[in-house]
């Protein structure tokens, strides 16, 4: 079974948003890069991303719950399952040098974006 272990929130200021979740709920900062702050509650990864980093999302400057992430055993097999059940791949812009945990990225049949990986996200179990 796949495990839902990642949720990404797009915000104007990732530092301020991270502080809200750290100070309010005691989430721990496990990784900070130029464009991402990864928080963890020990099991789930909550990532703050800047709202101008669209990563294939047509919504311009979207602020809100941006995408989910599933940890799976077999990425190509999962990709086939997603497509067989009505999901479709996200058309990603080329992004040399970007450090992605995700190995594939899809839209569910309703337009919810999801990352798929075998490697999991930092701070998850």
């Amino acid at each position, binding site marked *: 079974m796949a495990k839902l272990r990642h949720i990404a929130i797009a915000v104007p200021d990732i530092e301020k948003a991270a502080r809200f979740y750290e100070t309010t709920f005691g*989430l721990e900062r496990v990784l900070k890069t130029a464009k991402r702050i990864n928080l963890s509650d020990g099991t789930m990864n909550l990532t703050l991303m800047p709202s101008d980093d669209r990563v294939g999302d047509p919504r311009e400057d979207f602020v809100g719950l941006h995408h989910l992430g599933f940890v799976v055993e077999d990425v190509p097999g999962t990709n086939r399952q997603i497509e067989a059940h009505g999901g479709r791949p996200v058309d990603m812009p080329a992004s040399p040098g970007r450090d992605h945990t995700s190995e594939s990225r899809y839209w569910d049949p309703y337009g919810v974006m999801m990352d798929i990986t075998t490697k999991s996200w930092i701070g998850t179990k």
Partner: protein
Amino acid sequence: MATGKLRHIAISVPDKEKAAKFYEDTFGFQRISESRVATRLSDGVMNLTLLQFQTQEDAGDERGKDFVGVHHFGFWVDDIGTSRKEIEAHGGKYHPGPTAHLPENAEHKFRDPNGIVFDISSHGWDGAKR
């Protein structure tokens, strides 16, 4: 500081039955419970809820009943009152949801400083493990 465990993600869809099947068939999620507006799935740890709002009142905010997408997420906390104080002290705001037909766990909704909606629960969500 209060602590919270992120254990609930709610997606609003036009047809919760079809959406639940997608997550069951694709990812092997298990169906735990259902209500008039919600179908609740689990991966053993996380609760994933598919919402199908029937009325504007169900939806409870300006996005309306036809909103499609990730609607809110939720933290499992020890004590609602303590967490509410922490949320408000850090710039979050109480966000009264629908006034009728409340799903069991939806009674304490907030907005973070960016307006993003989350809820807190002291008894968790169906199928979630703390």
